[in-house]
């Protein structure tokens, strides 16, 4: 008899967890993991593997879990994905591996992400440390998901890698963006430490394009460069009042809270005091910002111009936010931010919107209603409507060809317009997911390894 539903993920109580930053999803127990692994049918055509951006051999690792060979399971995952604890937590499995699981024909999919997380958290990794080839060095720019993935694969193939990071600590969006309650920083540290053990070197406080130019990396002896500079530049709404005190980009708010630990008594970075927060936007970043604000004690409302069905955030994140008493003001579009004489936000003026009948493409448009605008009282507005690629490196590297939105152009092998310079992640695609960035980093690593191998043969 097959268990029709996923083995539930134990969660911290919503009314307790919305007051601190400890992790929300507590992780499977050993029994949970074995139980869930038993739900995998070990089907022969394994559609899940093809719908994983890095093609983890999912049935094989689940079989190892089922047979209580956890360390084997971890080795299997590590063949294609170096960050199981991270991906198990933040991947949108419901639209990737789990969406094609054979089980979904009648039941719920196997909880692949939860199993991956269990293995990453509990199994012991066998690391094969060998001396790295110092004559073929790779420079990786940015220590976010794409850079880390590229560095890992290059080091595993035996090449020396230096990762340059502009911030004072590594991890990129994993560090400054995704909050502790969704991705504990100890987990990030643990998985990045695997790279250190392999011999990857990290240099913080270096801005490529400022401290060191891209071309100089080759003069320094690097033979290949990977650009994983991310999509860091926040977009604002361009409405009146956006310069008021209390209006933040989600980036700034999350960086203050997650990265600079603003609000914690012994840290210097300040936070504004206030009672209410309005978060504008409906993506995962908006959910993260809202749930952080809630934990800091603000009454928090998400303002989104479409309806619940169109929220781009993962359903799980939306559910968690709702359980934690984050409020939702849907079909509302900000018109203006109102401030007092000191320039501090007092409210946000919104237009009530409505969805049209679906057009030929099946999509509903959102249009203003004839209702008069309404005001939401608030002292903080967090703008979470997207980001664009960081301009520093692009502006200083004239030969680097870019697209309309400032994204770096690459070919199918992640090669940019400059020889031996590769790129991937959000800097190429615009804001996307962690796992897609990992995939791009891996693809670039494969291109770099191929180039090195060919050069050696030639």
């Amino acid at each position, binding site marked *: 008899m097959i268990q029709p539903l996923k083995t539930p993920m134990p969660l911290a109580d919503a009314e307790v967890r919305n007051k601190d930053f400890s992790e929300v999803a507590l992780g499977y127990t050993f029994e949970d993991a074995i139980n869930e692994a038993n739900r995998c049918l070990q089907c022969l055509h394994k559609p899940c593997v093809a719908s994983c951006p890095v093609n983890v051999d999912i049935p094989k690792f689940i079989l190892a879990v089922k047979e209580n060979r956890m360390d084997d399971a971890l080795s299997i995952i590590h063949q294609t994905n170096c960050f199981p604890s991270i991906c198990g937590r933040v991947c949108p499995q419901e639209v990737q591996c789990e969406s094609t699981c054979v089980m979904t024909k009648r039941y719920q999919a196997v909880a692949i992400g939860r199993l991956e997380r269990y293995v990453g958290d509990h199994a012991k990794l066998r690391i094969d440390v060998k001396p790295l080839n110092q004559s073929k060095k790779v420079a990786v720019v940015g220590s976010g998901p794409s850079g880390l993935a590229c560095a890992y694969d290059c080091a595993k193939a035996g090449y020396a890698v230096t990762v340059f990071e502009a911030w*004072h600590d590594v991890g990129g969006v994993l560090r400054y963006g995704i909050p502790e309650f969704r991705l504990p920083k100890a987990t990030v540290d643990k998985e990045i430490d695997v790279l250190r053990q392999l011999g990857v070197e990290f240099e913080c406080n270096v801005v490529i394009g400022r401290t060191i130019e891209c071309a100089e990396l080759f003069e320094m002896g690097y033979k290949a460069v990977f650009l994983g500079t991310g999509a*860091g530049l926040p977009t604002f709404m361009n409405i009146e009042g956006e*310069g008021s005190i209390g209006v*933040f980009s989600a980036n*700034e708010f999350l960086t*203050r809270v997650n990265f*600079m*630990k603003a609000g914690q008594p012994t840290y210097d970075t300040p936070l504004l005091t206030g009672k209410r927060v309005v978060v504008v936007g409906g993506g995962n970043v908006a959910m993260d910002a809202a749930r952080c604000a809630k934990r800091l004690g603000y009454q928090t409302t998400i303002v989104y111009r479409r309806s619940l069905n169109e929220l781009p955030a993962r359903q799980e994140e939306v559910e968690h936010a709702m359980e934690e008493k984050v409020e939702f003001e849907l079909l509302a579009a900000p018109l203006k931010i109102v401030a007092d004489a000191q320039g501090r936000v007092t409210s946000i003026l919104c237009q009530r919107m409505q969805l049209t009948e679906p057009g030929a493409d099946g999509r509903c448009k959102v249009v203003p209603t004839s209702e008069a605008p309404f005001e939401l009282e608030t002292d903080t507005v967090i703008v979470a409507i997207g980001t664009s690629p960081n301009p520093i490196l692009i502006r200083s590297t004239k030969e680097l060809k870019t697209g309309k939105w400032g994204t770096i152009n690459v070919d199918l092998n992640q090669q940019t317009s400059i020889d031996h310079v590769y790129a991937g992640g959000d800097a190429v695609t615009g804001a996307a997911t962690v796992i897609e960035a990992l995939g791009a980093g891996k693809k670039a690593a494969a291109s770099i390894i191929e180039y090195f191998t060919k050069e050696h043969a030639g």
Partner: protein
Amino acid sequence: MARIIKKDILNSGVVSMEIEAPRIAAKAKAGHFVMIRVDEHGERFPLTIADSNKATGTIRVIFQVVGGSTIKLNRLHAKDEVRDIVGPLGMPVHHENIKHAIVIGGGVGCAIAYPHAKALKQQQAKVSFIAGFRNKDLFILEEEIRQIADQPYFTTDDGSAYRKGFVTDVLKEILEKENDVDLVIAIGPLLMMKAVANVTRTFNIKTVVSLNPIMIDGTGMCGGCRVKIGDEYKFACVDGPEFDGHLVDFDELFLRNSAYVQQEKHLCKLLEEDKQ
């Protein structure tokens, strides 16, 4: 970690530090800034590079001890290390073929205006330097300014030394008298820069100001440093911090810079208590 090589007290509230940062020194130009984090619990804050030396691999920063972070930085001495320093950041405005530039510094702003005067002088421009201070005890870089400028002028708000009045008084006089001025660079308190921009607007002379909004990363990530320039917002860290003074919305920036006044006071109080 970056080692402090030398520390000098320029006046009761202004400190100069030479910091070992060879990579930054190799690239630094007038108008660039660095982000500093003094210790593990510190905030990140920008300081403009006052001078740099490729040969010794050092940069010089000059700062006023005004808030929590500068109090913390001032607690360090030669041979101590700051936790993090990153740069050179910003997009310095490049000036070419300038005939006569008026460089204006207000208080500690003189430290940032000075490298501009030096750079312009190297390009054979005539440089008038107007340095304004609240009173005679707050003078910094007087000798350096005298040496570099073709026409040095000094003012004090209270008349305790040299001419009593504001930098704009001298500026107006020069502009009325001399018609070869083709650039004004003003660096100092926002109110001073605003006043300078108002004067030069009537004379229609290109005016560059250096803004000091609140920043977190300094690399285009947070948007906290956005300033209204004409009709659009620009990020001071990647688009500035130098802008056309005639287009800057100084009033909004003035308000924005006051965002954390209460928190800053609290931090300063804690640091004071900590010292006792």
